């Protein structure tokens, strides 16, 4: 009955809106996914944020500020989209801080040099865009509308990152070496970014049917490799994967084992920066508490945002 109508609506390509009926599981999975995406944006702002004060030129400084600002902006948009499903923003932030709700594993690694920020801005934002473009065709209205604006703003990140990497790769020997080393550090976390091969991931099937998850992990990884490996090689840069090769007939890129044990170890809290990221986030929340207390004083009951 209602489930059939709900699924038929999705099949017809229509969007589900906040006041429509939806299965509990659909609401729960959507909140989980959008919440994690929002957390990844605010935590993702931290490694790059530390380099704003050391950016080597006016334009890079302003661009990196605008990029990290966008990440806060995207986090705000995504929390809003998730809030229309009935979970308050403060509850989501709280779940992040107590470690109950996850964020993208790639941000548990440190940005060691200026070239790291260039590789992050280019290849990690590129990976995020592959994921976001797929999800923007999903079934939930507010999430798609948020992603529409996010993808527009991400196109600047991508171009800025690429311009940055190209400037370093075609610059002095010191710059070239710095960007190659950064790429060596970030290659494996980027391969982890799309998640383990689908056989292992348990949310898969139902999320695909309800257009919550739009593409498999392997398809998204493959789309990333197809688009960006040629550009990396064109700059004479290499990636740290001796088994990486392109299958002659299928043109598919085959990668070596990126060590999924490390992926699960880090995602469960044992990466180089897990503790530090949440600690910085907690300090920021605590330092701002007096401000929020002052603002909360004169406001009325909280209402769920509309769309």
């Amino acid at each position, binding site marked *: 009955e209602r489930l059939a109508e709900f699924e038929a609506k999705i099949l017809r390509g229509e969007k589900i809106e906040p006041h429509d009926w939806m299965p509990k599981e659909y609401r729960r999975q959507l909140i989980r996914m959008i919440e994690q995406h929002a957390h990844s944006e605010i935590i993702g702002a931290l490694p790059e944020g530390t380099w704003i004060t050391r950016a080597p*030129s006016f334009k890079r400084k302003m661009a990196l500020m605008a990029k990290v600002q966008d990440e806060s902006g995207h986090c705000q948009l995504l929390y809003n989209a998730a809030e229309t499903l009935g979970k308050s923003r403060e509850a989501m932030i709280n779940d992040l801080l107590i470690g109950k709700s996850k964020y993208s594993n790639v941000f548990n690694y440190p940005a060691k040099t*200026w070239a790291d920020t260039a590789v992050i801005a280019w290849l990690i934002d590129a990976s995020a865009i592959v994921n976001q473009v797929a999800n923007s065709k999903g079934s939930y209205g507010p999430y798609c509308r948020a992603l529409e604006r996010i993808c527009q703003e991400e196109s600047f990140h991508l171009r800025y990152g690429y311009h940055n990497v190209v400037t370093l790769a075609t*610059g002095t020997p010191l*710059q070239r070496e710095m960007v190659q080393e950064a790429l060596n550090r970030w290659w494996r976390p980027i391969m982890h970014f799309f998640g383990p091969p689908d056989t292992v991931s348990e949310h898969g099937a139902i999320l695909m049917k309800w257009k919550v998850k739009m593409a498999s992990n392997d398809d998204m990884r493959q789309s990333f490799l197809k688009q960006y490996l040629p550009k990396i090689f064109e700059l004479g840069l290499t990636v740290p994967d001796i088994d990486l090769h392109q299958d002659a007939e299928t043109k598919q890129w085959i990668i070596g084992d990126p060590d999924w044990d490390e992926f699960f170890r880090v995602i469960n809290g044992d990466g180089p920066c897990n503790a530090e990221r949440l600690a910085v986030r907690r300090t*920021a929340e605590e330092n701002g508490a007096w401000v929020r207390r002052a603002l909360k*004083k004169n406001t009325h009951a909280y209402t769920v945002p509309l769309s």
Partner: protein
Amino acid sequence: MAIQNLLLRMADDALIIGHRNSEWTGLGPILEEDIAFSSIAQDKIGHSLALFTMLQEFTGLTPEQAAFSRNAQDYTNCQLVEYPIGGYDFSLMRHFLFDTAELLRYQLLRDSSFEPLAKLAKKVVGEIKYHVFHANTWVVQLSAQGTEESHSIMQQALNTCYPLALGIFEPSKVEQELVDTNIFLGEKHLQNLWQDSIKETLQKAGLILPSLTDETVGYGGRYGYHTEYLQPLLDEMTEVYRLDPTAEW
């Protein structure tokens, strides 16, 4: 050249306060405020870039060379802007006191006899008006409309910032020449306008100006005398640039 002195201290002020306020990016008390405060910091860096580009006509230095290869004693920013960001109360109060002066300064400069500066002033006055709108809204919100706790925190921030803010108006050695050549009406004049302007918002906010004792007034910056905070800031700011100042970053 009097105009160089004015352009340099305005450029240094905007660069250093923009740099300091950028340290809040991603760490603000509320997401929406994080976004707003970052835009204001970006605008400041943009203003300093415009001013250093104007200075290039006189000095031949690119903005990067001018900004990334000087030490503290060659900087002419007022001491107020170099202090660490502290709590959000300090950064907000500095933002309020500094930007109120900045708006009045650029409004005056719209009629400057130095054409490029008048042109820049006309272009950015709208942006700075928003900076002041933002500052006024927050100072009133956290003081009069906040809690007892936030009101006392903001009063304390005003007590700390106000003496330092007077350093904005420390007269330079070319003050008279600027006034005579109608480039700028002078820091004294600006300070009078500023005193009236902040009074209005402080009244609405229920905050009172602290009494002044001479040694707390933040003079010295215009003549290269700075606090111990500036050099570490510059070392951090130029860390990557110094790896190879001739390279393109």
